[in-house]
Structures are given as structure tokens and as C-alpha cells.
């Protein structure tokens, strides 16, 4: 039996090596030329509990996680109990024999026969690879490489376990769910969203990152630490998030392009620093990787509920931009864009991502870094006549920036309102001049907003609106209507199609500022508009109404900590009723 794409879920306890096996399977698939979408769902604990690592793989382009499981790999009995109902028709369960269920769908793996306890997961990986029909030698090579950094005997034992599992599973032909061979292609990178953000930052010239560990942002500084010595940057674990943001501002003031990464609670502590960066006109890139709140919320799950918080964070009025990557590639490119904006407009700029995208590995075409430029903080002191005015009033609001110590000019700035030379003032006419100067930068930022991406007919029956990581789910949901490949769970979509209806998508990679001229026509021409977001209140819809007056009243929200899927959208549309055209 062949399947393309195929959805594989590996389930077990924390500490069972789930992520190691899942990542290895992902790497084998990427090297085999397949596309992947990884969804990691884990609990906030180091051992025990119930975690899953889901890999969707196929020969074509994949954009979103999907729900029915084709291959459920159970490393414990709880995985079967919890996820049995999600098994697709014709799906298989690969389970350790001690807890396997007795059914035709379940293949009991004699893991003890493949290897001793420590290497059993790698034995199970061998079974999965054989069931998928992946090339044995290539896969075994990846296993050896992955464990080769440890002792050679560890690599050998893992390889033996893998081959034993593979050989055994090859004989279980009725359980085969083979992926067709993928087209030959050049080497691709396997990256998750956070790794791409870190690489984007370095390519843009980042030299400084300060952070306080907080899931799901921590892998950004950890990735940077891994390349810091080679690429020449400093990554410092601060005593708290308040220190982290102020340290970055200090480094940036002194000329090092900088970034901080945190999640909602940590960002709450950074907020005074956001305002400080705006007042002192100091460039800073702030990455907020969202997780469900309020307060500590669900620390390891996903949500898109900090959009309004980030849009309005910081006392006083000042310009900002918020970029919200929807793919791993966008994580790289929009982080670069954020560095450019921060330097160009000298203030705080945001990258807003979430746990799903942060942890979602994908196959990515290598970035061509040869022609990518870096940001260039500060100008030439020799070109500026004394007295140097750090906050000189200019037409576009951007003052010539120098870094201290670069020349004899003195660079002075203040969190108090200041005169053009940076010294504090209580002269109220100076105050209004400086406010006007700072806000003049809004015009430049607005003129450069990345336009929303529209797909579909000019006046579709249904227009799905999305931002950030929900991009893939919305696009796949829409394409299912047009292709008719939905299957039985797609009643809502099938109904639209049966009526000859069409579905369009409008995706926002930049969510602040919003420029109505870029999207209002699409909203007005669609017969029905539904905004799809990973939050309970429809925060993008709120911002769209605020910016354009257009009220998207139909809103699909998800706030159970899991990413939005095309199936989720279809079910929500079904329950909302009125799937035909006309709102």
C-alpha cells in the first residue's frame, strides 16, 4: 500500500528519546527528498507525562500539520489509548509488544529482540523506515552520523538496532505504507522556525543577543550560542528579562546590532525597555515566541494570543513594526527585515512567532547568503559637523546615528524627553517637536509594509484571513476545496465546492502597522470573510477593524494549545453553519 503524504505520530513519555527519534526520522526524510511538517506537543516536565512528535511527509509541498494519523508509533501504552481515535482508515499502529493492542491495525514490535533497552527506540525507527520503504543504507548512515559524536560503540549499537528493526519490518509486508520515491533534488536544510530566526539574525549582522531562558524561545539563543565563536557574536544569559532587554539596548547604543528573544511572560518584563528603545531611538529586534497565557499558561504549547499585547506594549506613543512569519523561510527573511527596520528607523521592531512554528522542522532550500547585506549601525563621524545632535529633527524623523567612541563627537541620549542634543528637557515646545519627529517615522514604516498575500478568485464565496503560523492550515484548507481532495471530514468544504463556490486566502506576514489600501478591497469583494487565528478573541480581526473599519464578525479561534489544522478550520466552518456564499 502506498501513501503520499503520510502522517506519522510517535508518542511516549518525556525522557524516552522521542525527540531524538523524531528528529532523526525527519532528517532521513529530508535527505530522501521529501517535504516535512513537524508538530511537537510536549508537557512542561523533564521525565514522564505524555508527549508526541508528529511528522507529516510527502513528495509534494506540504504547508500544514494534519490530523488523521497514518502511522502511530507507540513507545508506551498510553499513546495507543490517547491517539487510537485519530487513526486514519487503513492506518497502522506500531507498538512495543508488551503493550500492543490485539487488532489487525496493530503491529507488535519485538523491540527487545532488536537491541538492549537503551537502543530500542532506534530499533523502532528501523521499523518505521522499513514500513515507509525508505532506503535502508541512507537511513542507517544518518543513524550512524547522529550518534557518531558520542562513542563509536554507541553509534554501532544504534546502527545494529536500526538494521534489526528494519530487517524484521521488511517481512511484515501487510503493514507497509510506502512513500513513493521523491524527485532527485539538491541538498536542503532541515530547520525549525527558531533556528531560521537565529540564522537570519546572524546573516543580518547580529552581534549581540541577551536572553533569559523561556520556552518556546530558548532555542533561538541556544542556536546563536552554537555559532557565536565562529560568527563573532556575544550571547549572554541575563539575570532576568529586564536585564536582557536593557543589555541589548546598551550593546546596540554602542554599535552592536542586537536581538532579544522571549515569550509572553518574559516580554511583559521587557515592556519598559521597549519604550526606552523608542525614546532613545535605539535599534532592537525583539522576538516574541508565543505560548498560551495568561500568566504561566501552558508553557510548552502554542497560541497566537499576544498580538494585541505586542502591538500596544510600552507606555507613550511611538512607531514599531511587527513581522509574523508563517513559514520557516519567512522566519529567516522576516528576521532580516526586522534588523533592517530597527536600524533604518532606530527603534524597537518585533518578530512574532509561536511554539508550533518554533519547533516545527521543515525542509528548506539553502539560503543564498552570498548577496545578503548586513545592517550598518552608525554613520561616519567625519561627515558630521559639530555640534552633533543625536536627536536632530529631520523630515522623515530619522536622525543621523553615531555610535559613542567612533570619533570626537559626543553621543547623548535620555529616557527623559530631550532636546535635539540628547540632554533632558522640560521645555514643552521641544517636547512636541520630538514627539512629532519620532512619529514621523511611522510614515516611512507604513510605506514599506510587506503586503498581505492573497490567493484565489477576485470575489470568492469564502475568504479565509490568517497571520503568522496559521498560514499553512488556511492555504491547505482552501486548496482542498478547489481540488476536491478533502474526504469525509470536509463536509463544510465539500458543500462549498458542490455549490460551485470558491475559497480565497488573505495572509498577513506583517501585522503592524496595517495599511488598509493593501487589503480592504479583498475583504469587501469576498461574499463571506472568516478570520482564522490561534486565539479566543480574534485579535487580528480586531486590528483590521481598528485600521480599516471593516469588521470581520465571523472568527475561528483555537486556544487549546494545539496548532490550527485544515481539519480544525473545516469543523469550525461546519459548526458555524451558513457555509454557502453571502454573509
Amino acid at each position: 500500500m502506498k501513501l503520499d503524504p503520510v502522517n506519522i505520530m510517535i508518542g511516549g513519555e518525556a525522557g524516552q528519546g522521542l525527540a531524538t527519534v523524531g528528529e532523526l526520522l525527519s532528517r532521513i526524510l529530508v535527505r530522501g527528498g521529501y517535504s516535512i511538517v513537524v508538530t511537537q506537543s510536549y508537557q512542561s516536565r523533564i521525565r514522564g507525562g505524555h508527549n508526541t512528535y508528529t511528522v507529516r511527509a510527502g513528495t509534494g509541498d506540504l504547508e500544514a500539520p494534519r490530523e488523521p494519523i497514518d502511522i502511530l508509533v507507540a513507545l508506551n501504552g498510553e499513546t495507543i489509548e490517547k491517539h487510537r481515535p485519530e487513526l486514519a482508515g487503513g492506518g497502522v499502529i506500531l507498538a512495543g509488544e508488551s503493550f500492543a493492542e490485539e487488532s489487525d491495525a496493530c503491529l507488535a514490535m519485538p523491540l527487545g529482540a532488536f537491541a538492549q533497552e537503551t537502543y530500542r527506540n532506534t530499533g523502532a525507527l528501523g521499523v518505521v523506515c522499513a514500513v515507509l520503504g525508505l532506503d535502508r543504507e541512507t537511513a542507517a548512515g544518518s543513524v550512524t552520523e547522529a550518534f557518531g559524536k558520542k562513542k563509536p560503540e554507541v553509534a554501532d549499537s544504534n546502527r545494529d538496532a536500526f538494521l534489526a528493526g528494519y530487517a524484521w519490518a521488511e517481512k511484515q509486508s501487510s503493514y507497509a505504507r510506502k512513500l513513493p520515491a521523491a524527485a532527485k533534488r539538491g541538498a536542503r536544510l532541515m530547520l525549525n522556525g527558531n533556528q531560521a530566526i537565529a540564522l537570519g539574525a546572524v546573516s543580518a549582522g547580529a552581534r549581540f543577543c541577551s536572553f533569559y531562558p523561556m520556552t518556546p524561545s530558548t532555542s533561538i539563543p541556544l542556536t546563536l550560542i552554537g555559532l557565536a565563536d565562529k560568527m563573532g557574536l556575544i550571547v549572554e544569559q541575563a539575570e532576568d528579562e529586564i536585564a536582557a532587554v536593557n543589555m541589548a539596548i546598551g550593546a546596540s547604543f554602542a554599535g552592536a546590532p542586537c536581538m532579544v528573544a522571549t515569550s509572553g511572560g518574559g516580554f511583559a518584563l521587557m515592556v519598559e525597555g521597549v519604550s526606552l528603545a523608542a525614546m532613545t531611538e535605539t535599534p532592537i529586534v525583539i522576538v516574541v515566541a508565543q505560548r498560551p497565557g495568561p500568566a504561566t499558561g501552558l508553557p510548552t504549547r502554542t497560541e497566537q494570543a499576544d498580538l494585541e499585547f505586542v502591538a500596544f506594549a510600552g507606555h507613550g506613543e511611538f512607531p514599531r513594526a511587527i513581522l509574523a512569519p508563517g513559514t520557516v523561510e519567512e522566519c529567516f527573511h522576516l528576521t532580516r527585515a526586522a534588523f533592517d527596520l530597527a536600524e533604518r528607523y532606530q527603534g524597537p521592531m518585533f518578530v512574532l512567532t509561536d511554539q508550533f512554528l518554533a519547533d516545527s522542522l521543515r525542509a528548506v532550500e539553502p539560503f543564498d547568503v552570498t548577496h545578503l547585506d548586513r545592517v550598518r549601525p552608525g554613520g561616519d563621524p567625519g561627515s558630521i559637523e559639530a555640534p552633533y545632535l543625536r536627536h536632530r529633527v529631520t523630515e522623515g524623523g530619522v536622525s543621523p546615528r553615531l555610535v559613542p567612541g567612533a570619533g570626537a563627537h559626543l553621543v547623548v541620549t535620555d529616557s527623559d524627553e530631550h532636546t535635539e542634543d540628547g540632554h533632558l528637557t522640560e521645555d514643552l515646545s521641544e517636547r512636541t517637536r520630538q514627539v512629532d519627529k519620532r512619529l514621523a517615522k511611522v510614515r516611512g514604516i507604513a510605506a514599506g509594509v510587506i503586503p498581505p498575500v492573497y490567493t484565489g478568485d477576485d470575489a470568492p464565496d469564502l475568504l479565509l484571513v490568517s497571520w503568522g503560523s496559521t498560514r499553512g492550515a488556511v492555504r491547505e484548507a482552501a486548496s482542498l476545496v478547489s481540488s476536491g481532495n478533502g474526504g469525509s471530514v470536509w463536509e463544510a468544504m465539500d458543500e462549498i465546492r458542490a455549490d460551485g463556490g470558491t475559497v480565497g486566502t488573505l495572509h498577513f506576514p506583517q501585522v503592524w502597522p496595517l495599511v488598509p489600501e493593501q487589503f480592504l478591497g479583498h475583504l469587501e469583494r469576498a461574499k463571506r470573510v472568516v478570520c482564522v487565528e490561534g486565539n479566543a478573541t480574534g485579535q487580528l480581526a480586531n486590528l483590521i477593524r481598528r485600521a480599516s473599519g471593516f469588521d470581520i464578525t465571523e472568527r475561528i479561534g483555537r486556544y487549546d494549545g494545539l496548532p490550527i489544522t485544515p481539519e480544525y478550520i473545516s469543523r469550525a466552518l461546519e459548526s458555524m453553519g451558513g457555509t454557502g456564499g453571502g454573509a
Partner: protein
Amino acid sequence: MVSIEDYGEFETAWCPGCGNFALLEGMKKGLVAAELEPHRVLFVSGIGQAAKAPHYLNANVFDGLHGRSLPVATGAKLANPELTVVVESGDGCCYGEGGNHFLAAIRRNIDVTMIVHDNQIYGLTKGQASPTSAEGHITKAQPHGAPLERFNPIAVAVAMHAGFVARSFTGMTDHLAEMIRLGIRHRGFALIDVLQPCVSYNRVNTFAWYKKRCYELPAGYDPRNHAAAMQAAYEWEERIPVGVIYQNDRPPFEDHFPVLGGGPLVGREVDRAALKDVLKKFV
């Protein structure tokens, strides 16, 4: 040659008789004695009457948020270790709002000189107790007397093996200038706690109160003797020692970063060949 004129003369927003005036004069003298030109110095300050001080001399200035001077200074020093970075603010800013950063800066041993205007009161907000107010000190906000035990910054810094710990008094300008010169010259974190009167809101710890108690540590005193330093750190009620109380040679924080061997982080090109190598690791 650097002269005191290079640091300028400016009109201030301080009360007549404020200890800040003497501290500003001592600061300029210390910078001149350290032979630093204004553009090589970065002052980082916070909020309070003391935090305005860097506006009244010529230098690079980042006057930031209340309590957050040390992280800003740390980031700036790491970005450009060639800058002489001086933190200047009051006792509330440095020990109250910024307490966690004070501990972290000592542990990092970042090469920053922290000069604390310590008048044992909140002046700008009109007279509430500060971390260094005496226990029982009566204010409008603490009408029954400050109930918290007085924070002893010198003892905390010595206990944590801070690189350089000194105390001075605004009634001893030359001594103060010398402490500042030594603190700036020290490679590593340097704390200089400067006792000064608040003429408007502290009627207990007056100029005369300090003048009566402050004495210079004797010539035989060894600031590298940690036990002796701990003892000196607790001397307060009757007599208050001023001078270098403790000093060690822990390597400064910047020395732990190999990338700084190549000089400041400012203006470096992205090494594209290295970046390509990094990307290959993700194949």
C-alpha cells in the same frame, strides 16, 4: 593633555548645598587624573537627582530607566570594550530598583565603574526611605520609622568578592577623585559608594553627621585581606571608614569572550564563508 575645562561647566537642576555638586567636581577631577578624553567615556545613568549628573559634564551619555543602568552599561561595554563605562546614579536606583543587576554585575565582574550617590533617602520623589536609610528613619512614607534593616552595599560587595570596593564622602573631594581614578583604572567591576547629604529630605545624615564619622583607612590597611575588608565593611555607627576597602584580580567578564580578541563588535563584516559552513551543519 586632558584638562578639567574639557569636561565643561553646566547649569544644574539641583538644590543649593546638594552633595551632588561636590561629587560632580570630584568626578571631573578623577576623569582628568585618569587622563581620559570625554569622547572615550560613556556614562550610563538611571533616574533620580543623582542620575542627572552626567548631563552636567561633557561625555557620551545614555540616561536610561530607573534601576537599569548596569545592564545597559554591561551591553555597551561588551559591544565596545574600548569605551570607559561609568554608571552613576543614586542609592534607590542602584540598590533598590536595580538590586538584582547589582548582584549580577558583581558576579560577572564586568569592567564598569559604578558610582553611587548615597544620601540614604529618595530625594526626587520627596523623601521616602531608600535601601540605605537607617532602620527606624522617619519619613512621610514611613511615619513609624523605616522597618527594613539598612542595606549595606559595601558588605554585600565584599562578601561577593567584587573586584574593587571603595567608599568616599563628598566632603573629601580629592579623596573622591582618587577613588574614581582608581576605580576606573581597575580592570573589573568597581563599586564606589559615595556618602553625601540630601539637604532637602535627610535631616539626620547631614554633612556634619558624615564629616564627624568618616575617616581614611590607615596606611597599613590591606584591601586584599578579605577578612579585614569584611570587618571594615560593617563599621558604621560611630566611625565610617573611607578608601579602598577591598580589591582582587579576578579577570573581567570581557576576557571570557574569545570574539572580543578581535576588538569591538562594532562595524564588523559578516563572514559569509563561515556562515555557509554553519548552514551546512543543518543539511
